[in-house]
């Protein structure tokens, strides 16, 4: 039994959480009945099902409208709100051998998928870095040595971890049964954004989504708030892990202790004796410790972005005080060669518990770094010596604040209904939020029961994000995506490099953000490349969507596939306009001839080798070149370039028509 396992056995806090959830559960009101007024709003069942699927899933699959109508719209929504349908297809597409990280603990990830700095340190320790320069990182012999070393010690490159995070998101959205859970995972991740651009939190992003977000998206707001607050990804991303205070007895005693004085004297002696090898490093460590202090980043964002909203009625004083209340909220040391691990091992769990330290999984409350003074936040007093519980009370207060209810409901309505949701709708949802103590399901049911959700103004009002757009194309065509990373590259080109949004605000959720000239051209190009199977690893069977009947003409293809890909939408005008263009009996022949003359030889065919590797599924044996690229990538802190691969594809009329429909404005709308 290792030390960390021992700590995991003392999870008093976790048990308390369970208990309180139980108590809360027994008090909360029953969920309102689903009763969607689409008939009153003049919609047929089919139209209503299309709208419901458009907003609560990542896109309508062929035949799905009928399925939902047959099942009953209310029942379908209830099933999605329960969100527990078994997902064999997702499991099949994410096999454990090529997606090992998806089930790993943070601890295993941290000790397997090293970040660039850790890799360099290991290389330096093993004398792989010679005197020449750091640039020898690019040399093949160095990379071969490093690769060998990493393989021997069981280490993997961080890029591989990122590949798994990215691919699983695409797979779940495209093929998962629990669509609403996935849509909400996308929503709440963006709301509580963390980013792979920040090295310190990179390794935790996968478990952040898996453990803090996905299980909580249909629960209570307070639960998801607390889960994000305590997750290492957020603690690193917004720096709370390094926000400390010495305003507590333990720190003061330590400072005064004889041992501490002796240690200090000894350290100073080393620092002053520059002949000692460790002098410089020790000096830096002492400096680093001195510069430690309060960091307000998380406290500010939890109020501005996660709960109250910027106009939610808090002051700068509240920001500082919340930051003080959250001092000591930190991360259990996990890296086996890290300094924190030694400290924890020296202290032992018994002593730590006695001193008010709290361990819950990977979360660590450091009592000796917590500000123990009394505090006033948003007018409420918190007595001195509140310890860990104080922070929890602050979160509870923030989660259930009326400003929070309004802010969260506005965001949900913006996501599901309209870029500019009406005050009436937001008010209904806010009431439901407050009455149910932040029960997200109830808020969603209230939204779906509202006339505003079904209003003519709301239909097709939302423009899909690039991710929603790409995934909806996969779903609409029943496409088989064998290299999800290719879809990711396209999303980046279209303006949504998900998991890499740098600011804690998350991506703005409005059409004006997503749609600009460059991104729109890329959407059209995506439609064409996708439908003509020019994106590697994307397989379509368009004929199967039409019961394997071949349309008689381009005109017929247009009519048939408009209906298949955009069910329940009136396409008459579009079809009329396009007919004029495609009405040429010899069109297909001409295009085929043109294609023969210009066989695919584009510079993009030789995409950057690193990207090659990122795109390849690990199921196929990586080539030598890919492996090398991976090693190089492992040491590169640079952002990944986006180079898009094309394969020969299929330029028959049906594919092209489908491409035009997918790239059309109507397909951009939810």
């Amino acid at each position, binding site marked *: 039994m290792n030390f960390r396992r021992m700590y995991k056995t003392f999870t008093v806090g976790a048990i308390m959480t369970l208990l309180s959830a139980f108590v809360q559960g027994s008090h909360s009101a029953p969920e309102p009945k689903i009763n969607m007024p689409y008939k009153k709003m003049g919609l047929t069942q089919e139209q209503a099902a299309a709208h419901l699927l458009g907003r609560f899933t990542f896109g309508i699959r062929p035949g799905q409208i009928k399925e939902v109508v047959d099942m009953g719209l209310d029942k379908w929504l209830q099933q999605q709100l329960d969100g527990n349908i078994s997902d064999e297809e997702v499991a099949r597409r994410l096999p454990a051998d090529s997606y090992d990280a998806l089930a790993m603990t943070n601890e295993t990830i941290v000790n397997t998928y090293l970040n660039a700095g850790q890799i360099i340190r290991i290389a330096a320790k093993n004398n792989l870095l010679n005197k020449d320069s750091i640039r020898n990182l690019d040399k093949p012999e160095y990379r071969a040595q490093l690769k060998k070393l990493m393989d021997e010690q069981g280490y993997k490159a961080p890029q591989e971890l990122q590949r798994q995070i990215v691919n699983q998101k695409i797979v779940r959205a495209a093929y998962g049964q629990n669509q609403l859970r996935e849509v909400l995972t996308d929503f709440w991740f963006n709301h509580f954004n963390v980013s792979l651009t920040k090295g310190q939190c990179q390794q935790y992003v996968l478990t952040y989504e898996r453990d803090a977000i996905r299980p909580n998206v249909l629960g209570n707001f307070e639960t998801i708030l607390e889960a994000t607050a305590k997750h290492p990804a957020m603690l690193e991303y917004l720096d709370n892990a390094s926000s400390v205070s010495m305003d507590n007895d333990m720190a003061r005693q330590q400072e005064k202790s004889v041992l501490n004085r002796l240690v200090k004297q000894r350290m100073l002696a080393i620092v002053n004796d520059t002949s000692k090898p460790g002098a410089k490093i020790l000096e830096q460590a002492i400096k680093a410790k001195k510069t430690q202090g309060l960091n307000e980043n998380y406290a500010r964002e939890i109020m501005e972005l996660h709960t109250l909203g910027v106009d939610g009625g808090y002051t700068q004083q509240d920001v500082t005080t919340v930051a003080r209340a959250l001092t000591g909220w930190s991360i259990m040391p996990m890296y086996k060669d890290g300094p924190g691990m030694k400290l924890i091992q020296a202290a032992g769990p018994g002593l730590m518990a006695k001193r008010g330290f709290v361990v819950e999984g990977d979360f660590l409350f450091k009592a000796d770094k917590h500000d123990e003074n009394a505090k006033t936040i948003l007018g409420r007093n918190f007595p001195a010596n509140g310890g860990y519980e104080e922070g929890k009370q602050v979160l509870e207060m923030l989660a259930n604040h009326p400003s929070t209810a309004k802010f969260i409901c506005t965001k949900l309505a913006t996501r599901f209904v309209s870029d500019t949701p009406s005050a009436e709708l937001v008010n209904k949802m806010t009431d439901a939020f407050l009455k149910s103590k932040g029960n997200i399901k109830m808020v969603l049911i209230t939204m779906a029961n509202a006339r505003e959700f079904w209003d003519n103004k709301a239909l097709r009002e939302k423009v899909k994000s690039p991710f929603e757009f790409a995934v909806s194309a996969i779903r609409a065509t029943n496409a088989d995506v064998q290299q999800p990373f290719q879809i990711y590259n396209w999303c980046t080109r279209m303006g949504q490099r998900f998991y890499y949004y*740098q600011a804690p605000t998350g991506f703005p959720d409005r059409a004006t953000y997503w749609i600009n000239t460059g991104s*729109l051209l890329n959407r059209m190009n995506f439609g064409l490349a996708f439908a003509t199977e020019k994106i590697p690893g994307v397989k379509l069977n368009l004929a199967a969507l039409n019961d394997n009947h071949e349309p008689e003409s381009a005109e017929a293809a247009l009519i048939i596939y408009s209906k298949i890909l955009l069910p329940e939408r009136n396409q008459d005008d579009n079809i009329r306009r396009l007919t004029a263009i495609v009405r040429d009996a010899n069109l297909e022949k001409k295009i085929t001839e043109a*294609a023969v003359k*210009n066989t695919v030889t584009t510079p993009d065919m030789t995409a950057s080798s690193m990207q090659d590797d990122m795109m390849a599924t690990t199921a196929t044996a990586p080539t030598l070149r890919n492996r090398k690229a991976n090693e190089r990538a492992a040491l590169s802190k640079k952002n990944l370039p986006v180079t898009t691969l094309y394969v020969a594809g299929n330029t028959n009329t049906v594919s092209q028509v489908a491409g035009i429909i997918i790239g059309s404005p109507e397909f951009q709308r939810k």
Partner: protein
Amino acid sequence: MKSGALALFAAGVGGVPTFIARAADSRKILSPYKKNKILVCIFQRGAMDGLMVVSPYTDPNLKTLRPTLYMSPAETEGKLTDLDGRFGLHPSMQSLAPFFTEGRMAIVHGVGSPNNTRSHFDAQDYMESGTPFSKSSTSGWLNRAVGLLGHDATPFRAVSVTSSLPRSLYGDNEALAINNLQEFAIQMRGNPLASNLASKSFEQLYDQTSSEILNRTGKESFDAMKMLNVNNIKNYQPANGIVYPNSALGNSLKQIATLIKMNVGLEVAFAESGGWDTHFNQGTINGALGRNLKDFSDSIAAFWKDLDAYQDDVTVMTMTEFGRTAHQNGTGGTDHGRASCLFVLGNNVKGGKVYNNIKTLAKEDLEDGRDLPVSTDFRSVFSSVANGHLKINNNKSLFPTWEGQGLGLMKG
């Protein structure tokens, strides 16, 4: 109307581009194609070692702090280009040195952020948002700059030659992130006839959609596409037989030069350069830093010479998130520090000078006893360039919460 891409519309394509019509409609501009000024920003990610790039070589502390990294103008000690008797330019930057001598390039030293974070992520975030203590700023400073230009423009007004939009350009004003300009077209790979057909179809569809934003942006996209004409990009020939370094930065700057010469309405351009995080063996003349600097310097020099007749309209400004420790570390490199230096190049720059408030490298003058302190706020440099070159005179909006003064780097 000016010549260049716009002539296309007059001659062949027909009609006035949508975005011009819209601009004229809103009465914001009368003459959209008066030549605009162009600001090109280059972000050096990873924190460039300002003390080695523009070295205060006369300071005796430097040699003590950096025994194996020290260089001076003396032949035997690395041969810096002496700039002013106090500072010397790294030998790998010879291609830029003449611009300093000619008075077209200014160097600002001791630049950085008042926020003392030494995290790359945080420091870049703060420098790019322009709000050094607030992470939740929704916009970047260059995007705000675009909004303050005071006239409407083409889709190519703000372009970042990167795979995704940099933090500097986050915000409400339209900005394009495009890695490769050749991708700015409707493409059916290897099949021009099909591309043409698809393009026509899309144009029809976007022309009639009931969604206002898709309709408007769709029209603009097709206008922009015709304006840019991918074939011209493929066949771009730099002026005077200039050859750009075959590097990421060289390639980015070449594309920016292409946009400038096509006269498509570019006003703010962004490129980036990596590899500045030199913790290990940064070396002297031919070390890791030296090689990176050579690419940096040669790319900018090639860009500048390529601009040729367009030089009067362009200012180039470099930036990096922070500097590095005054002393070298145990592995022949330097660690994260505070202030660094930056370069501003343009015919309208009061150049030939190393602007600085640097004291000495004696321990008592260093921040925390180890780092070159920030003696010039980055915003006083950025605002000076924005004010002087782009004629933006609203520092309150450009850098909210900042109340400092611009540095006065620009003429007139």
